[in-house]
């Protein structure tokens, strides 16, 4: 695969020009996707000097979707990172938690839901531990509008963050632990885009992100919302949602919000990564915060009072910026729902 990355590059620079880290940090601090994925593997003497920059890649895949040759740039960067074993304090903590609790973050409480049913809701480690309230609101909405929603007694991290830090064995172990848990479900719904993608790829389960579930599986007449007062919001496009789960999800988000009376959705002049992905939030929190700031600034310029992110992980990172209210998109819809439980 790395071979293909090297050989297929036409040196157009499209990847370099869209990389949010490179735009923010400049070439000196972050040499960009082409340098890391295509050129670096050819000059192995320099690789050691790149271990710092390798930690700064958020795995947003903007480079990859811009590449006219469709090279697997992000994968190549992640593999290079794994080869280095760039272990960080955050990564070690994550591994400890996974060994102890089966989750990347130790859970504080359990969301209230039936433990049996037909439609399995997978809250995700970050969601349940860091934004428990928002997960509960999402869940309440699902219970009100969906059928057979449940959370199994036990579930484990989907393994996605472990893969990002190169801990493939641990990711495989979790995949196997989740297999029997997922088996009984007719539908699998996740709050986090990363979980949806990982469960599809690793477990072969047709997991839906909660936006896909709401838009595709629920009859629109069951989704009735009203905003208590006129409100202006902006939508953040999570990288793993738009580029891995699929770009249709953001169309869904727009349409769902368009159906809310009293709500105005504004476009931002600059779209992009929250800055927290790919282990950057734990390895380089100051960079993650600066990138988050770019997003919230852009939303503020557009006149938004709230920045809505259909991803718990993005919410946690965007909140680092401070200044603007950030909320999970589904839990926001839940607060406006006229038939919440």
């Amino acid at each position, binding site marked *: 695969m790395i071979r293909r990355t090297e050989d297929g590059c*036409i040196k*157009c*620079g*499209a990847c370099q*020009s869209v990389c949010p880290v490179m*735009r923010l940090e*400049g*070439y000196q601090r972050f040499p960009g996707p082409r340098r890391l994925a295509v050129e670096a593997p050819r000059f192995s003497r320099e690789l050691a000097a790149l271990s710092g920059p390798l930690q700064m890649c958020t795995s947003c895949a903007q480079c990859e*979707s*811009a*590449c*006219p*040759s*469709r090279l697997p740039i992000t994968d190549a960067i992640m593999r290079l990172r794994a080869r280095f074993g760039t272990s960080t304090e955050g990564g070690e903590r994550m591994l400890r938690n996974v060994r102890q609790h089966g989750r990347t973050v130790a859970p504080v409480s359990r969301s209230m839901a039936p433990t049996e049913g037909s439609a399995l809701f997978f809250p995700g480690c970050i969601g349940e531990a860091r934004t428990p309230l928002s997960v509960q609101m999402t869940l309440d909405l699902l219970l009100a509008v969906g059928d057979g929603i449940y959370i199994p007694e036990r579930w484990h991290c989907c393994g996605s963050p472990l893969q990002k830090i190169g801990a493939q064995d641990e990711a495989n172990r979790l995949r196997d632990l989740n297999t029997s848990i997922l088996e009984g479900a007719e539908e699998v719904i996740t709050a986090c885009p990363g979980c949806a*993608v990982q469960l*599809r*790829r690793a477990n072969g389960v*047709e997991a839906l992100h909660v936006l896909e579930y709401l838009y*595709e599986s629920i009859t629109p007449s069951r989704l009735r919302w009203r905003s208590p007062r006129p409100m202006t919001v902006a939508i953040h496009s999570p990288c793993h949602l*738009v*580029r*891995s*789960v*699929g*770009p*249709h*999800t953001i169309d869904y988000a727009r349409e769902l919000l368009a159906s809310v009376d009293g709500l105005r959705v504004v476009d931002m002049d600059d779209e992009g990564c929250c800055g927290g992905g790919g282990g950057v939030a734990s390895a380089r929190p100051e960079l993650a915060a600066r990138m988050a700031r770019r997003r919230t600034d852009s939303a503020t310029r557009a006149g938004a009072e709230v920045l809505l992110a259909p991803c718990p992980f993005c919410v946690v990172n965007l909140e680092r910026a401070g200044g603007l209210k950030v909320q999970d998109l589904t839990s926001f819809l839940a607060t406006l729902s006229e038939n919440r439980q």
Partner: protein
Amino acid sequence: MSLPSLDVDVLVVGGGAAGLTAASRLALNGRSVAVASSATPATALSTGRILLDVDDPAAEEWASFTLAQFRRQGAYYVMSKKPVVAMTNLGTRMRQSITSPLFDWTRTDRNVAVVGFIGNCDLDPDLVAREVGRSRRARPRPYWFSPSYSPELDRDLFVEELGRALMQDVSEETVVLPPMPQRSPYDIMAELRKRSGKNVVEAATPLSWPGRRLQSLLEGVAARLGVTLLKDRRLASIQLDGGEASAAQLSSGGRSQRVDFNALVLATGNVTSGGLAVEGRDIVDPLGIFQVASSPASGIASRHLLSALSSGMVTRDGKAVTRQGSTLRNVIPVGSLVRGMSYPLGRGLGDVVLQAWKAALVAEDAL
């Protein structure tokens, strides 16, 4: 796992200059149109300058429609029947019929300052000055400017500092700058002109902002006319029924979506963009459906490059032809995907947009 299906009059696959032009004309005529595209199109990698065949009556028609639409987005481009000459970032001259006056270097001014920004590799003033100086048509002088601010992040401070530097340290009346990293640089350029009192212009630079700007303007035109832009979607397969295409599967992330249509416009570009693929020594259609052949061409030293660029989809009365030789009545290939339309063998953007503008009517006939 399929997404809810979509139904349109015309599905356009490929959202570069060709696809967007065809889509806009069809939408203008009241058709429902969706454009599915993925990855950076060659259009966004180009210099964004368009040279038109002004003897073609479609040129005037396309230009007056498109430039009016550009103006609605705040972009001031004009058409000139006699091509205007611009300077490229390599110091070569480039002829163009459609451009913004803010980007042009008037040929009458012989004393030109070429200003590079330290840390920006789009324009090397030493190289440009050397090259342009050789032609003796001008006396260019190179300058290096070291910006304290980012034009992207601290626009106002950047403009203030550069404006002052141009006024105080540059004696020439015309100043050529690297492209501003902006979708809408017109106000910055105007402000720099006002602050410095000089004729400030931008170099024609491929792989940079001018091409991206053109791309976003063309997308803006289509969106304003009600075209559905499906970004990051790839055409995975086409369903053929007898002599026509009836549906297509697009992929969105890991899922697929069926699109039903009455006509299919293919605008997936040439080998650069993946509309055509290299298979051994042959250039083929990556879907394995259509006939691809080369046209007689010369002017490129490399034999392989010549064969790659002179190859393209075969058409009959503007319609696609299968490998087996039958014509598909409602599949219309447009742009650099078509045989003989690849730059620099074709004329690039100008040929591409005019061909697509006309082909839109062929697509309409097939409805």
